[in-house]
């Protein structure tokens, strides 16, 4: 009975804390704008299949490259498909892939970083050298190679993106662990004879969680950038799936007279990336972490 009360209390506290953070984030205009944009995109991604006015893959020679009108709000593309339909559907794949990709990146990057920071020594040296080596290969080269040899399905893209964007988190998690490792509560946990696993779980993770979450939020926007770049280059999702990167690259050749089919996906993608960025920045500030001096690694 008493136990139940305590856990309930804990959960309530967690919810209150999350609400508190959200409130701090929304108290500044940039954070509010960011949160609104992200919320808008998430709601749109969830509801767009039901509100899309046309079939996204319906090709029609009669409606090729029409300018925006009452029937086709954003005009039509070179295959006669409705640009409005394809634009509101275009964020679904990108959001899903990058969300799960960031989760994977957070998990493996965070845990490996904490582990390396805690044990130190030879293992740490070797792992960090390998991470450095991976960091020095341009992500785009590695991603393109993987995708071109394994295919462009989401089952390949999610783990591949998760892996390549996690190596930077390893460094952040390791540095954050180094910051807390010398504190008294770790020393006393050691003295009490706790195992490494228990120290990681009970002492380190609660203290480095904020830094890692902020890094993950930031990486989400970079991953979105990377994912849409892959689509743009023709190595992401395959047609006729509606995707902003793909739409931009298809419409680019014709933009001298059909600029609407390139503007709509540009607005969609840019607003989402800016929204996630502003949100991540506000999140960092709400948690009291300064990211402004970090380089984009």
């Amino acid at each position: 009975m008493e136990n139940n009360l305590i856990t309930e209390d804990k959960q309530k506290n967690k919810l209150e804390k999350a609400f508190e953070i959200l409130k701090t984030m929304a108290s500044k205009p940039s954070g509010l704008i960011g949160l609104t944009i992200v919320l808008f995109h998430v709601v749109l991604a969830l509801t767009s299949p039901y509100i899309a006015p046309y079939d996204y893959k319906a090709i029609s020679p009669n409606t090729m490259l029409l300018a925006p009108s009452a029937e086709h709000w954003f005009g039509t593309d070179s295959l006669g498909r409705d640009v409005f339909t394809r634009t509101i559907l275009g964020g679904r794949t990108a959001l899903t892939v990058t969300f799960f990709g960031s989760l994977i990146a957070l998990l493996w990057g965070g845990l490996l970083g904490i582990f390396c920071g805690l044990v130190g020594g030879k293992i740490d040296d070797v792992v960090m050298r390998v991470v450095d080596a991976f960091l020095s290969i341009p992500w785009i080269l590695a991603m393109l190679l993987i995708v071109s040899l394994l295919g462009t399905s989401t089952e390949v893209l999610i783990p591949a993106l998760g892996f390549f964007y996690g190596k930077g988190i390893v460094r952040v998690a390791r540095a954050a662990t180094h910051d807390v490792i010398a504190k008294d509560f770790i020393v006393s946990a050691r003295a009490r004879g706790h195992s490494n696993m228990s120290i990681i779980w009970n002492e380190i993770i609660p203290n480095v969680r904020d830094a890692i979450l902020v890094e993950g939020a930031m990486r989400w926007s970079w991953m979105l950038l990377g994912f849409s770049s892959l689509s743009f280059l023709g190595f992401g999702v395959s047609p006729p799936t509606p995707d902003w990167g793909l739409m931009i690259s298809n419409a680019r050749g014709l933009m001298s007279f059909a600029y609407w089919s390139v503007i709509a996906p540009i607005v969609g993608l840019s607003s989402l990336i800016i929204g996630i960025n502003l949100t991540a920045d506000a999140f960092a500030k709400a948690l009291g972490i300064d990211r402004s001096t970090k380089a984009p690694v």
Partner: protein
Amino acid sequence: MLLLILKRIGLGLITLFIVSLITFVGVEVLPGDACTTYLEREAYGTALDACIKRLGLDIPAYERYLDWASNVVRGDFGYSLSGEMPINEVLGPRVKNSLVLASVSILIGIPLAIVLGIITALWRDKLPDIMISTITIFSMTIPEFISATLLILIVAIWLGWLPGIVIIPSDATFYELLSNIILPVVAISMIMTAHMARMVRSSVIQVMASDYVQMAILKGVPYWKMVFRHVLPNALLPAINVVALTIAWLLGGVVVTEVVFNYPGLGRLVIESISNRDLPVVQALAIILASIYVGINLIADLMTLMLNPRLKSLQIRK
């Protein structure tokens, strides 16, 4: 000091060695070898045999790695599959073109970033800062292919000022390049400048809040003298590393920018070689790009060491 420098160089070399292992093992582990991926459906009979023989795929992997690695150290990357020519000949003009693009962007980007960073820091939260910071956030977050596409749409198509895409062969001369690279340079330096300006801004703000600057103010040092004498030297030093990382990070972005503008540099070669499934060229590119990354970081580290007297006596930084 000398030991520290040697140690840094050693670490860089180890990183490169691991990179070479990763690229080699990666290509081995991923399905299909260089010949079957390249020939695709024609991968049978004499064509396959000839290809395997030429690349030496019939000898064990570790021997091939040693062979390949020792050639790479001597600057020989072997043969490209698609062009049937030495990879060095393929790479030569591309490296030159990319260097031209990168150095012009850096020459424009770094001074601009420093000026913008200082302005935004000194007029923090006032109108100039809010305006410039909003622009930097936009140009920093928007993907390269979007800013490049918008540049083409606005400057080349709607205004008609400049050619939208680069239509020069990869062996064009320096002067032919210059007239064609304005838009790509703008696209690249926009992002780079934004990143660096933000870094300079927060660095200057940090130094402005430090005790010795407060001391200088209390002592009555004139404002601008204080900025140039006390703030800037201390604020710009940590920026060196970030500048290096930003430049290195842009290697990935340059790939996309070069494709959008059809610029014949290393970045487009990455896409071309991967589309052609020309694995030997991909391996060579991985090593070259990784060396650039390691090299730039090494130079930045050494510059920080040289310029910062406090670090000379310290142990190697983590």
